[in-house]
């Protein structure tokens, strides 16, 4: 009687196992890489009704964040400025430029400029801007180098893991409160950052919540 299984079947299970391993491995890798806000949300750069450049206004002209986002240090919400804020300067500068037509329209009619919101957390996340900026968490920690952006895009994932990275070790990120709006500030060294961070966390009793209800309600 001839052999029921030909010779090639000797290594067939090995081959199937190798293929399965390859299949599962790459699928897992793919999901790890793509199924996260680091891929889905980072880089979102919608076309805005007015091509406002933070690089020009902040980096070149030296406007403070709070000139426009005035209530960031006393409200949970960092306000998008009203058209009247733009018109403080643009009633004189570029006062008939086409690019600013939506702003002038909004200023005259009272209808808001339809800015596209970029940075979004789920509605069950209660993020408070004022408590962060008043405790030495700079704008750049969540928004990236927004002072260098010609066109704003989402730079950080804003996922829960991202929040917890700082909530667990605030001393790695906290800076002196008067440097919060200085987006180019750098600590002298990593060690200096930890040292002043730990001092600040201790002196100001910074206790970022890590329990669910700290941020979720």
């Amino acid at each position, binding site marked *: 009687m001839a052999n029921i299984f030909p010779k090639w079947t000797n290594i067939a299970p090995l081959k199937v196992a190798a293929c399965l391993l390859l299949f599962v491995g790459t699928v897992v890798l793919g999901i790890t890489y793509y199924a996260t806000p680091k891929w889905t949300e980072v880089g979102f750069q919608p076309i805005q009704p007015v091509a406002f450049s933070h690089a020009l206004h902040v980096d070149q*002209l030296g406007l403070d964040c709070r000139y426009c986002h*005035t209530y960031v240090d006393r*409200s949970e919400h960092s306000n998008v400025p009203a058209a009247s*804020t733009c018109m403080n*300067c643009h009633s*004189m*500068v570029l006062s008939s430029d086409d690019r600013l037509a939506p702003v002038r329209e909004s200023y005259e009619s009272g209808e808001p400029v339809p800015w596209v919101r970029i940075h979004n957390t789920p509605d*069950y996340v209660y993020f408070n801007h004022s408590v962060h900026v008043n405790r030495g968490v700079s704008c750049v920690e969540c928004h990236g180098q927004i002072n260098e952006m010609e066109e704003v895009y989402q730079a950080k994932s804003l996922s829960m893991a991202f929040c917890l990275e700082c909530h667990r070790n605030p001393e790695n990120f906290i800076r002196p409160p008067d440097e919060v709006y200085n987006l180019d500030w750098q600590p002298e060294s990593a060690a200096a950052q930890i040292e002043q961070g730990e001092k600040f966390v201790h002196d100001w009793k910074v206790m970022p919540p890590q329990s669910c209800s700290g941020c979720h309600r």
Partner: protein
Amino acid sequence: MRYFIGIWIFLIIAVVSLLGFRGSKSKDQPLYVFPDMDWQAKYLPQGENKFFADGRNDRPMVPGTAGRGYGNQLASVFSADYTDPVSENPPLYSGKDDEGEWMRGFPVEVNDEFMLLGQQKYDIFCAVCHGASGDGNGVVKQYEGATLIASLLQERLMAMPEGEIFNTITHGKLNMGAYGMKLRPDERWAVVAYVRALQLASSASVDDVPEQFKSELGL
């Protein structure tokens, strides 16, 4: 096996070229795979709301009504013991004294802290046009069209009562926009105090520098 690996590598290349890499720029709204309760029917600041004719959550003040309280200190606003802060210190809000004239002096205590607050707010909101030293040469000045920026160091403004400067900050004047909604009343008074300091400094001489600071300035 050879076929499988070939097809699989082709699939990987296809997926990567379709989905791209992390951080690549995109004009499209992010993909929400499980949008459970991410979007709730609730009022968010500056949010959209189809219920109102103008489509927004933030409601403008109803005509004929007066505001009660400032900011989000709602507890005190709705308390039975609430007294209108305006009635406690009217000049702090109006810039006018009891006779209805522009107030001279300040309705609050002027101290170091107050001056530093004024400096901070001045540098954020005023220096853009009026310049860090108040000479009217702010960064906006370099642009065509921005020709009517007043120097704060001129005689007329040095003689102007504090209350009138406060009023100008609150409501704006000519080309200048109103800053009343950006600065609290006490912050506006702090800015007035700092403007006074700038005016003093502009016409000061070496003799006005206190002894202990002279060496710092190399005098």
